[in-house]
């Protein structure tokens, strides 16, 4: 929480002035019962009409000043709260962008998005409310008490009893019910989960005739929810009648105490009215305060969640003194590398050791979960090696400036992603200064020309968010084009031609071999046909290398490779 407060720093003036004006307003409000008492005691008692009019004008004036003060306060509060959340949102977004793949995998995208949106909004309204009300309510409660004391100390002693009693009731109910609300929320989430599950799995559930069981399950889950809600409802239902009894008992006590004091001649009738008025004000403010505390508690929970994201330090940073690579025979070297993902202690890759010369084409093949993607993801340093070294141009990737490294590597990820914007804008992600000729070349090389020609406006064709308006195969080819526009030294295709048919796949590989800058190419695939012509094939199984060689060599030496190949041959025969 503390680390979020720094974002309020630039709004010091507003955060101080907002509550201050609120207090001013509250003070004027506290004066009103006194004025009224004066009207009763002086105006009515002496039948002084001019005095009454004067005093009423004073009350109107107090109202106007109060209005002005509170408008000012609202403005400062709104400004500080909005400014705070804007800054916070900026930093959080920046922070999330700096996180590495491992941290992103750990936290999950949807969590991040919730933090960025609804959590920050909650915090914003929390800050706003605090600035507006957090000082005001206690101030009025205690202010009313103090004012009562200035009227008459003995009569005001009633306040000393009533206020703590009220606070105890209000806060006990809240302290008891807030954790219960969390339970209610969890129960509701459960009900929601079952509903969603039954929609996504409707076919399977019906195929197994589970409808009635699911209805029963839902009933049980909802019974649980209703039971909890009823219980919380019963607890909170005590609050209003409870406070009502206390306050009114207080008022009766006040009248009685006042009566004694009036009888003894210490105070006047009007002052008794003022005391009663103060008591009523307290009730109103305490209820406001209770509601405020709920809002603040929610905002605090959100704030803690946000700050826990901000506290995550990226495990991956560019070094202080990045190294520029010299000349090296090898484009990429894996030197006895092993990899562990944060979340699981097991090694995802172990003892990966191979070298790739400049301009070579390397195929990487293996079963699901064998670690193919992990290997290539280590080249642009998406994940750091647990032990061993990954080198690009003879220099450890950890010694590179991150930006420099990633500019050398063009990676096409398994999941084809395009962004909202024109085809041209998307391809220029690879290179800001690319001209149309470069883009056309990349489009041709990625076998995209045919369908791009058919799109209205060609390069100016608008791709909608998530690339929903083009097919999966087209998306894959455009992501490949985007990597080619980058003109990288190392080009990695991570199973990124899976939606292409054999002929297109072959044409694509041919045009990549013919690229002008002759990049070192990594092709990750499940099909032997895609990699059989590679200079070197790395066969992975369960995170380990089980064979390295050319297609023909591996057929003779590597059982697993042969098995993969056979399974595909038989399918094709």
């Amino acid at each position, binding site marked *: 929480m503390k680390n979020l407060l720094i974002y309020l720093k630039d709004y010091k003036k507003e955060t101080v002035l907002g509550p201050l004006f609120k207090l001013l307003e509250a003070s004027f409000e506290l004066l009103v019962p006194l004025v009224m008492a004066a009207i009763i005691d002086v105006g009515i008692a002496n039948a002084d009409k001019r005095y009454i009019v004067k005093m009423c004008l004073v009350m109107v004036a107090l109202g106007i000043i109060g209005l002005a003060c509170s408008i000012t306060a609202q403005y400062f509060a709104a400004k500080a709260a909005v400014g705070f959340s804007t800054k916070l949102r900026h930093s959080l977004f920046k922070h999330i962008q700096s996180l590495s793949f491992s941290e992103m995998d750990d936290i999950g995208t949807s969590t991040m998005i919730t933090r960025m*949106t609804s959590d920050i909004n909650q915090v914003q309204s929390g800050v706003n409310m605090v600035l507006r009300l957090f000082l005001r309510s206690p101030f009025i409660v205690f202010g009313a008490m103090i004012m009562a004391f200035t009227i008459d100390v003995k009569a005001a002693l009633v306040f000393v009893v009533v206020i703590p009693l009220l606070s105890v009731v209000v806060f006990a109910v809240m302290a008891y019910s807030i954790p219960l609300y969390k339970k209610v929320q969890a129960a*509701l989430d459960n009900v929601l989960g079952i509903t969603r599950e039954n929609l996504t799995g409707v076919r*399977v559930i019906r195929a197994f005739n589970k409808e009635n069981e699911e209805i029963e399950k839902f009933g049980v889950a909802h*019974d649980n929810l209703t039971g909890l809600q009823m219980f919380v409802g019963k607890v909170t239902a005590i609050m209003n009648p409870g406070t009502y009894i206390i306050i009114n008992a207080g008022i*009766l006590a006040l*009248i009685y105490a006042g*009566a004694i004091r009036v009888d003894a001649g210490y105070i006047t009738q009007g002052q008794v009215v003022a005391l009663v008025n103060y008591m009523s004000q307290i009730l109103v403010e305490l209820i406001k305060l209770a509601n405020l505390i709920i809002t603040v508690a929610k905002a605090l929970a959100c704030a803690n969640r946000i700050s826990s994201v901000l506290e995550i330090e990226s495990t991956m940073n560019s070094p202080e003194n990045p190294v520029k690579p010299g000349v090296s025979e090898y484009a990429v070297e894996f030197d006895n590398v092993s990899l562990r993902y944060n979340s699981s202690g097991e090694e995802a890759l172990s003892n990966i050791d191979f070298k790739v010369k400049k301009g070579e084409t390397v195929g990487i093949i293996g079963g699901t979960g064998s670690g193919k993607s992990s290997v290539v993801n280590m080249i642009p340093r998406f994940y750091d090696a647990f032990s061993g070294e990954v080198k690009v141009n003879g220099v450890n990737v950890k010694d590179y400036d991150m930006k420099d490294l990633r500019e050398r590597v063009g990676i096409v990820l398994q999941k084809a992603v395009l962004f909202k914007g024109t085809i041209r804008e998307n391809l220029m992600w690879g290179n800001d200064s690319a001209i149309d000729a470069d883009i056309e070349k990349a489009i041709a090389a990625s076998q995209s020309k045919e369908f791009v020609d058919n799109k209205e406006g060609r390069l100016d064709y608008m791709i909608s968010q998530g690339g929903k308006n083009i097919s999966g195969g087209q998306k894959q080819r455009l992501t490949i084009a985007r990597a080619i526009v980058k003109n990288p030294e190392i080009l990695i295709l991570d199973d990124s031609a899976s939606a292409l048919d054999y002929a297109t796949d072959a044409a694509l590989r041919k045009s990549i071999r013919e690229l002008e800058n002759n990049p070192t190419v990594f092709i990750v695939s499940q099909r032997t046909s895609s990699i059989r012509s590679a200079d070197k094939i790395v066969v992975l199984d369960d995170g380990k290398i089980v064979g390295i060689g050319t297609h023909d060599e591996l057929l003779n030496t590597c059982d697993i490779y042969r098995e993969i190949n056979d399974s595909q041959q038989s399918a094709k025969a």
Partner: protein
Amino acid sequence: MRYIKKYRIYIFLSLIFAAVTVALTLYLPILTGDAIDLVLGRGKVDFKGIFDIFKVAAVVILLTSVSQWIMNVCNNKMTFNIVQDIRNEAFNKIENLPLKYIDSQSYGDIVSRVIADVDQFSEGLLMGFTQLFTGVMTIVGTLIFMLTINIKITLVVVLITPLSLFVANFIAKKTFSMFKLQSATRGEQTSLIDEMIGNQKVVQAYCHEEETMEKFDEINGRLEKCSLRAIFFSSLTNPCTRFVNSLVYTGVGITGAMSAIAGGISVGQLSCLLSYANQYTKPFNEISGVITELQNAFACASRIFELIEEEPQIPDAEDAHVLEDAQGNVALNDVSFSYKPDQKLIQNFNLSVKPGQRVAVVGPTGCGKTTVINLLMRFYDVDKGCIKVDDTDIRNITRPSLRTSYGMVLQETWLKAGTIRENIAFGKPDATDEEIIEAAKASHAHGFIKRLPNGYDTVIGEDGGSLSQGQKQLLCIARVMLCLPPMLILDEATSSIDTRTELKIQNAFAVMMEGRTSFIVAHRLSTIQNADIILVMKDGNVIEQGNHETLLKQNGFYAKLYNSQFAV
């Protein structure tokens, strides 16, 4: 409304106690006012009179609290029970809706109807209703009480109060457009966040962080401006209405004081009027809020009832046949089917499958291969013609018995939240551990399950959670393996499983299919070649039918597909 009917006793109680509460709450200031009137000054205090009033006041306070409490409890009972009834019914409906409806809606939308809308409805309509009721009661009651005390002062209150309503309304109208702009900008920002953080790997791979940040800041700046306006202007409501209220208060003060001098009222009555003046304005502000909430609640209610009143699937006929030990004769006679009346799909389609035969369904992506599954499992009903299993029209067979006769593995692997064991035993909850492990071994899932932290007791989240696509598929196969019904429907995976695992699955499939009538949505040529009947589909229609050799000889679409290496 019939939901509320069940609880009408609670409504009745709630309304009565609300009325009692309001009346008593309003009566109390009169009592305190009377008491104050007995406190005139030094030596002029009527303690006995005060005590008499106190006795009444104590009873009033107690009664008020009790009736308030009963009202709250009644409201809770009513609200939560109605919510539960509606949700149960909605969920029941979900389980009985035709798939046609479910497929055409987004899941999120249905979920939000069942969860959020029901909440909104109950809170808005029920609570809003009682609030409205007590609000109106308070206003009317206050007016009556005030009138009994002094008519002139009441008039002052009645005349000034609408001002506060007017002010609140004015501000709400003016800020509406600001809020609209704010939520539009927020939406824009969320969609950027969604896109960029969702695809952060690509953003980082292209070092595009700075450009993204620029875009983000631009929207963020705009959001700051319009949020500030919206929040500030809307927050004027409270101070402004408070100001109007203080005007009312002053108005009561001045006219009251004047009357008091003229001897029209006592000081106690003035104090009582003052507290009424405070109470009188409050419900006005609340009511304007309640009305928007009510409108909202009605909108939600209509969304919920739209779902609940949706036509359910045609229930099984009472005399429907229970299919037992199906032989596996499947016949489609002159079947026509389409999802939308204006888009014809399958027409006059005939097929006869003998027990133990394999039927492969092939065709390019999106040609409607799953339509066949939908019809066989009776997720959808045919428009014309009929589908027969063992010579009985499936519409005359109970759905449960028809569906248990099929084992189904879909490409979209759905798993429920729970342990691996629960998932495998989904179709046979009383299966022994040995049976479960046997099924897992047969489907090659045992290996990876063993390596999971808690083995078969590993809890997987909704939709499989951390499992890979291939692992999920293996679990789905194990799930069917455990039951092994007489007929099978298999949707072959395209690319989620690597070819070696695929080969193992093929073997498992082959074991399963032995002697069973099977329908396979096929992507692998080996599966297709071994099929007894191949259905070639294109654009939702079956265009060719036969076995591998005859189809090749026809030299039609199948031959073309085959020659292009089955590029699906």
